[in-house]
């Protein structure tokens, strides 16, 4: 007899909280969906947003490779995407989502609009951290004979790392927040669960449990983010 008998635990929770085992099962699925959306979207945001931020920083006037026009155009596009409310983006991007992954509903489908909404957000946050790197350090490495790639690899990214980690933590938490809206296109998740089983069924106990769960998840992410940012901060 294992002490980690899941069914046994479920039954115990059900009895204690008056939540049916079906609702409990749905809760587990929702947690999984929220985590899936958050981390997949987080990964793509990092892959898309960080190079974009580096691009914006090095093409800025007086930077490594100034390209003022291109810099302004990209900056403007980012501003457009940051201006559109997520709930509108979610619906507006349905054709794109369908083109990319074959369907417009479900957890995977929600990752497309989520990523497109958070990339511009993270880009701006990362841009601030990268811009704060002391220009004299860049000059120093340039004087050593470092090329642009060296400067990005040895100066910009490592020096900005603590700020980038903090910024990414904020972005991840933002994804958890806006993923609640993804329920609109059948993505599920904790936010949707709270509306369906908590709000619409007048179960404030379920609502409470969801909120407590979100507090735990968000605190954990924030704690990990702070820990890592601190670990890499040698100032």
């Amino acid at each position, binding site marked *: 007899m294992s002490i980690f008998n899941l069914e046994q635990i479920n039954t115990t929770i059900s009895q204690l909280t008056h939540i049916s085992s079906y609702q409990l099962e749905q809760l587990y699925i929702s947690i999984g969906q929220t985590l899936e959306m958050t981390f997949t979207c987080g990964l793509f945001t990092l892959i898309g947003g960080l190079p974009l931020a580096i691009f914006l920083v090095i093409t800025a006037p007086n930077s490594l490779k100034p390209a003022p026009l291109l810099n302004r155009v990209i900056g403007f596009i980012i501003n457009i995407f940051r201006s559109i409310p997520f709930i509108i983006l979610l619906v507006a991007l349905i054709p794109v989502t369908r083109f990319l992954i074959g369907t417009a509903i479900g957890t995977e489908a929600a990752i497309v609009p989520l990523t497109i909404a958070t990339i511009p957000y993270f880009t701006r946050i990362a841009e601030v951290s990268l811009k704060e790197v002391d220009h004299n350090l860049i000059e*120093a490495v*340039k*004087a*050593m*004979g*470092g090329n642009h790639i060296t400067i990005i690899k040895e100066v910009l990214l*490592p020096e900005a790392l603590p700020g980038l980690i903090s910024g990414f933590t904020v972005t991840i938490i933002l994804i958890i927040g806006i993923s609640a809206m993804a329920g609109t296109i059948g993505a599920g998740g904790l936010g949707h669960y709270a509306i369906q089983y908590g709000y619409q069924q007048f179960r404030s106990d379920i609502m409470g449990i969801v909120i407590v769960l979100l507090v735990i998840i968000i605190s954990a992410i924030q704690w990990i983010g702070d820990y890592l940012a601190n670990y*890499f901060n*040698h*100032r």
Partner: protein
Amino acid sequence: MASQLPVIEFKNVCRQFGKHVVLSDISFSIQKSEIVGIIGHSGAGKTTLLRCLAGLEKPTSGQVLIEGKNITNLPEKALIPLRQRIGLIFQYFNLLNSKNVLNNIALPLKISGVSKTERIKKAKELLELVGIPDKAYNYPAQLSGGQKQRVGIARALAANPALLLCDEATSALDPETTRSIIELLIQINQKLKLTIVLITHEMSVIRLLADRVIVLQKGKIIEQGLVSKVFSHPQSETTQQLLQEEQPTLPDSILKNIHKNPLQHDHAILHVIMMGKVVREPLIANLQKNYQISAILLEGNITHIRETPIGTTFLAVPADQCQQTIKALTNMGVETVNKVGYVNF
């Protein structure tokens, strides 16, 4: 012979930003293992000159030659290996906070493609040379200003540069640390036969460290030569001004009573500049003993340019013995004696 080529040569270098001329017609050359100081007021073009030296900035016209190679018209890519021939140290050290001391020093080697074991070995040797071998695994934030500059120097030396360029390298340090860094630089210059160029506004640093000095004013070289010559006999007003802060001057209480023509019982004030052996002689006692002149010491100091002592004093002697004193001092080997005026105590 290649070693006879100057390490750095500027030929009629001009640099303009728009219509603003920052450097105009700068020509000089620096030989191997020389230590050259470049001084000037802020805005004289020191920083631009340094950036041209480091290959970070291109002159508008004229040529910059590094070890005989003209770098003026080279594309950015070709400049990269030449920049590695020049080690730079900075006022605020510019160490990477994200790397430990060893990796900071090894960075120039990493850039030039040296293997990891090689560069760590070299970095450790350099750390030994600059005298902080126990700080290898510390991060810059854990070091004092002097230690940071030592790391900066080690990093600048990593790629075996032909030239060490110091940009106000001691200006952010306290006097004691400044002295220890100067000693380190002299030691490196002697040990490695390394050419050093210092850009600074601190005359004391030039005095202690440099062989030659170049004085800049409004983008032009207005004076250059051996430090002992230029500092003891500054020709231009700018050099005199720059040296002023270090030179003793008469106190205001005396200055306001000075008059041109002698009255009865007046004293003449003489400004006496001497260098070398004469400084080590009992000047006032000799005046008394050999010429029966009672001189009063009003103000004075002795500084050193490398090994040479330079004394600057203000003496007061009875007005009627003024000419006699000037003659006597000249006989003793004093460089210059100027009559400032007369004063009644």
